[in-house]
């Protein structure tokens, strides 16, 4: 444990925290602009050029708003719930390789905080813990809409974790490792060697489950504005609500990185072009989240459960069995 390693790790953590907190802000801007474009509206235009300063305006509003703790809530739990959402989102980022390793001033930098050899399991586990943000926030709020949202959140997260785990099992069997770096190196031979060609079913299943895990629109039941107000966020104000928001957007970015690395070749052979390609893939996957929001209605909770347990889970199991048979012979 030398000092250089310590300083390097702390710098990496600070960079990831600042970059992705800022990206969450930019994500809202992109979301508004893209939704506006698809729905033939203008989106934010008044504040700054092309409405770009809207991010700053929203940030100032969130930071300076009064922090209200309503009477009747379970105080400590109510206060800690948004922190859980944001913290678990960023904790998951510790095992994601954001870029290929590069050398700067003769010092080789590995753009991954902790290269543990169980990276993918760790990410899935921490994302599973992310469930506690909406759950505790909803249960401590003393509000019936929040409670409904918490119940939905628990059922959706538990169900779709099954699909995520089973769908990712087939690629893990092919690579024979749980490290995301090994996943990337397995697919470093160009587009032809991408996992998505050999595991298209697993890719689609994981993609669908990613929408449920991040709570994005076709499965946006946890905070469905037109039935349960803002769900678990109803009683929150100011920066506590903002932390939920940052957590959701950071999760979208991180799960896009995970999908790009596991199925779409990651950063390839590790050249600068490969790094740019990874960012391009992540940008497309993030854009797809917004595209779906503009194009699709929400599904009902019972349809969501039906989809998970009667359609996606059997397909995932069959996919694992077929992969096993193919690998054996």
């Amino acid at each position, binding site marked *: *444990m030398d000092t250089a390693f310590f300083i390097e790790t702390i710098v990496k953590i600070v960079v990831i925290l600042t970059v992705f907190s800022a990206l969450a802000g930019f994500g809202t801007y992109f979301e508004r602009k893209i939704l506006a474009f698809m729905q033939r509206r203008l989106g934010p235009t008044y504040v700054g050029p092309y409405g770009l300063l809207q991010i700053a305006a929203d940030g100032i509003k969130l930071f300076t708003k009064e922090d209200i703790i309503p009477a*009747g*809530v*379970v105080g*400590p*739990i109510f206060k*800690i719930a948004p922190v859980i959402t944001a913290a678990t989102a960023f904790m998951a980022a510790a095992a994601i390789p954001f870029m290929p390793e590069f050398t700067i001033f003769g010092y080789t930098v590995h753009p991954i905080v902790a290269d*543990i*050899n*169980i990276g993918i*399991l*760790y990410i*899935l*586990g*921490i994302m*599973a*813990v992310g*469930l*506690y943000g909406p*759950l*505790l926030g909803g*249960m*401590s709020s*003393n509000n019936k809409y929040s*409670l409904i949202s*918490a*119940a939905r959140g*628990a*059922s959706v*997260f*538990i169900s779709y*974790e099954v699909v995520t785990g089973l769908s990712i099992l087939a690629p893990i069997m092919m690579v024979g*490792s*749980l490290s995301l770096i090994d996943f990337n190196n397995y697919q470093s031979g160009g587009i032809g060697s991408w996992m998505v060609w050999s595991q298209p079913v697993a890719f689609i299943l994981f993609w669908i489950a990613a929408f449920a895990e991040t709570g994005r629109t076709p499965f946006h039941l946890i905070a469905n504005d037109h039935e349960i107000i803002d769900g678990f966020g109803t009683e929150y104000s100011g920066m506590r609500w903002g932390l939920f928001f940052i957590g959701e957007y950071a999760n979208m970015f991180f799960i896009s990185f995970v999908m790009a690395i596991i199925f779409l070749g990651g950063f390839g052979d590790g050249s600068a072009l490969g790094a740019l390609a990874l960012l391009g893939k992540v940008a497309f996957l993030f854009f797809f989240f917004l595209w779906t929001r503009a194009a699709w209605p929400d599904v*009902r909770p*019972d349809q969501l459960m039906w989809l998970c347990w009667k359609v996606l889970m059997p397909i995932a199991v069959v996919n694992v069995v077929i992969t096993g048979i193919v690998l054996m012979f």
Partner: protein
Amino acid sequence: MFEAIAFYLFAFLTIAMFSIAVLTSQALHAMTALAAGMIFISAFFFLLGADFIGVVQIIVYTGAVMALYAFGMMFFDTTRGVKEKNANSMIVFGLSGLAALMVVIIFVAPIVSENIGAFYPINEAVGNTQDVGMVLFTKYLVPFELAAVMLLVAMIAGIVLAGKKMDHSLTQMSEEEIELMRESNKKAQL
């Protein structure tokens, strides 16, 4: 030195969390503290180099077991404290103390008599996950498969018990159909 700091930090945090879980009368506090304690326990596995077990600890206990507890608690008013009914606190105190003492003896006895040894030390050449897999699928294959069969039995039993009326979905039926079903249920009860 860092290991010692981390060990004492997480030991303190784990004990503090589980104490809150036991001592509080507020159900939501107890649940949150229990979940946090489960996560802090995984830190010990990471410190020992057992990454795989550490992550499984987080996934299974915090992700699945605790989430099911939380799901069960949806049907209570969790914003109020629970009034506990203790008929005789001496019996509760004595029994729980005795149980704790038994657990300590069970774990300390082999350590004191130095009868404990690692049969399968960590193989540095392969990863932690492969180590667990090799032992699980050779020496402990039969218990592993038995556990799998038992879980399958439990799952099928759960589906049979819960799935009696699964072919009806109230959200997909029209009002008349629901009324018709209620009428027939009433007739069946009479």
